[in-house]
């Protein structure tokens, strides 16, 4: 080990605050949330200690034991044992323990100690411990454990000061003791004896947790609360965003008119800006408020500690269809985006449960589908109240989300039936303490989401929209042409070819053209529709007019069919790439893409034909 740098690993039980501490030390922005199994990968960061040394910090997934039962626990085990490919064991292990949960966490501390490597124990969440009236004899604890102990509050600025000073000092020696070879019963006996000597706690759990759980986990009220909460979120996404969306729309239309006003109306540049950039990007940009509202709810739920409760309530139902309650959190994250959702499945121990969850995750309605849904709903579904309180558009959106959820359950059930191996698999899931979300963290989280969305709009969506504009402009119309120019272009021809396949499900050639770039990112389909219609329209159709335009040109059956298509179709290459990476198998990618396309076509076909027959 060189004197100039040192490698430190943060190790501990799930949800003890390792990542919060990592962010505090390195200034990183890794994901922190109030449930076990947030971190599923090894993450690296560094900072300069007061002494001038560079400290490399590793954030690791939480583990209950080195006897790993899931892929994320195996990473932690391998890093700590120095068996992780291409990496030596860390110079110092900072073992993090939740001070309010020492009965559980100290056992793992003893297991880490056994490794015989230098260890510092960080007693985290000291703020919560004090609030509960706990008194911890830190010196006594340090003496009994034979390792230095420091107190930390990972979510408070400067809350890791004591830890930094301790790390920066000399590396602690480790003294082998009798418990190092003890069996599990003796290990627990040792923990009990240490606790009896060094910790006084007035009561085992926080009174507030018990009070909330009496309602939140109640067999009837619990489910009622969960259903109300979900419904409220979808209503809010639809109705709260509207005023802001109208504002953005007016702004883009105004800006577009102002910018293109300087250009001659028949120039190619005028067309590129007006039909490509403003019509295309504008169509997507207006969905920013909705996406942020959705994320606001997801972030608050994640930090509150409610999500594992929802998983508890739904476990039995999910188990019956071949999933597990643990799948709830990955599936809920998939409402934001299937990619983090699929990665979050690493905290599911059972490989079969995990695979099932991965394969159905794309059915959860990700935020990229929201622009497509909203565009079509606003254009085709009347904006009126149902049963006095609900908005019909909100109800349709809710129904689309549910169509995704129910089909996921159905697919999982079929997979359960097909699978031969029927051995038992475990739930064993910890329910954390409730926590009040920190306003600053939520605001930062939303800001990050906004940046990610804007980067997508300015990056891939802009690139594809411009590309599509070229393909729909060239080759130009021949002399004396009677049709709009786009009919003679590459895109127009491609659309007409695809139309043969998609005509039975009611898609016109414009939709077919939009679906192709929509494979790269779902929202692009909306941008592409904006461009395609702007190109084929006689007058200038800008973002704000796309909705009214399609509501004149498409039948209701076509719109419903496209909605059904988007519930199922794997219109996202990145999701397929993540499935490949996480399952390490092309076969699973083929299975996922195949069944999703199949379902999409069937659902759209049925929707279109039934809607036509009825109208």
């Amino acid at each position, binding site marked *: 080990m060189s004197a100039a740098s040192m490698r430190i690993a943060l190790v501990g039980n799930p949800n003890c605050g390792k990542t919060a501490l990592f962010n505090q030390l390195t200034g990183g922005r890794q994901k922190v949330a109030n449930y076990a199994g947030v971190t599923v990968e090894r993450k690296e960061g560094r900072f300069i200690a007061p002494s001038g040394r560079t400290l490399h910090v590793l954030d690791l997934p939480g583990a209950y034991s080195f006897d790993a039962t899931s892929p994320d626990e195996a990473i932690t085990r391998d890093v700590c044992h120095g068996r992780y490919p291409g990496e030596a064991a860390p110079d110092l292990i900072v073992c993090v323990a939740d001070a309010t949960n020492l009965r*559980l966490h100290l056992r793992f501390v003893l297991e880490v100690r056994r490794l015989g490597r230098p260890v510092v124990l960080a007693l985290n969440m000291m703020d919560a411990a004090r609030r509960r009236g706990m008194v911890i004899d830190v010196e006594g604890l340090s003496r009994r454990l034979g390792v230095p102990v420091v107190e930390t509050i990972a979510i408070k600025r400067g809350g890791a000061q004591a830890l930094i000073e301790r790390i920066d000092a000399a590396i602690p020696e480790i003294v082998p003791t009798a418990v190092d070879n003890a069996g*599990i019963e003796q290990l627990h006996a040792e923990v009990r004896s240490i606790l009896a000597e060094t910790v006084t706690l007035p009561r085992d759990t926080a009174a507030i947790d018990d009070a909330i759980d009496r309602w939140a986990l109640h*067999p009837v009220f619990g489910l009622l609360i969960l259903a109300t909460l979900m419904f409220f979120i979808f209503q809010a996404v639809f109705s709260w965003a509207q005023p802001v969306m109208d504002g953005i729309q007016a702004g883009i239309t105004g800006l577009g008119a102002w910018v293109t006003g300087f250009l001659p109306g028949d120039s190619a540049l005028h067309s590129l800006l007006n039909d490509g950039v403003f019509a295309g990007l504008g169509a997507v940009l207006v969905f920013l408020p909705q996406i942020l509202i959705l994320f606001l709810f997801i972030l608050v739920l994640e930090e509150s500690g409610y999500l594992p409760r929802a998983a508890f*309530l739904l476990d039995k139902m999910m188990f019956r269809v071949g999933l597990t309650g643990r799948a709830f959190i990955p599936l809920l994250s998939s409402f934001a985006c299937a990619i983090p959702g699929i990665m979050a499945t690493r905290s599911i121990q059972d490989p079969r449960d995990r695979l099932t969850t991965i394969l159905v995750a794309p059915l959860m309605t990700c935020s990229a589908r929201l622009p497509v849904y909203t565009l079509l709903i606003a254009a085709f579904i009347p904006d009126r109240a149902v049963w006095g309180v609900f908005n019909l558009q909100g109800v349709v959106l809710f129904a689309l989300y549910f169509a995704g959820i129910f089909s996921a359950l159905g697919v999982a059930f079929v997979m359960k039936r097909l699978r031969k191996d029927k051995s038992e698999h475990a739930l*064993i899931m*910890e*329910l954390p303490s409730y926590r009040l979300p920190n306003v600053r963290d939520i605001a930062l989280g939303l800001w990050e989401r906004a940046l990610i969305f804007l980067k997508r709009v300015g990056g891939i969506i802009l690139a594809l929209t411009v590309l599509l504009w070229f393909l729909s402009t060239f080759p130009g119309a021949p002399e004396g042409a009677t049709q709009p120019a786009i009919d003679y272009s590459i895109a127009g021809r491609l659309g007409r070819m695809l139309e043969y396949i998609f005509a039975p499900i009611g898609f016109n050639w414009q939709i077919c053209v939009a679906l192709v770039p929509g494979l790269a990112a779902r929202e692009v389909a909306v941008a592409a529709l904006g461009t395609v219609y702007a190109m084929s329209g006689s007058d200038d159709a800008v973002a704000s007019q796309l909705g009214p335009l399609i509501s004149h040109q498409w039948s209701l059956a076509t719109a419903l069919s496209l909605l059904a298509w988007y519930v199922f179709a794997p219109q996202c290459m990145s999701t397929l790439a993540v499935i490949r990476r996480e399952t390490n198998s092309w076969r699973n990618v083929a299975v996922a893409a195949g069944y999703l396309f199949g379902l999409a076509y069937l659902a759209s076909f049925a929707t279109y034909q039934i809607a036509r027959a009825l109208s």
Partner: protein
Amino acid sequence: MVQTVTDAHPADPIAQRLRDLGFVSGEPVRLVARGPLGGDPLLIQIGSTRFALRKTEAARVDVSVDGVA
């Protein structure tokens, strides 16, 4: 109070995990809540921690009832 945790089959990883989590003889446990469908899963408090266990998992844990348990 936990009596013992029995393996459902040789080298049962679920029983091993339960022991790691603190289900060892003499440890007090408390049933906090039951799931809405068929009373499954169970919410068990051990120490300051609450674990959701399915009935099949909880069946591995033998308990003796005493007083408030």
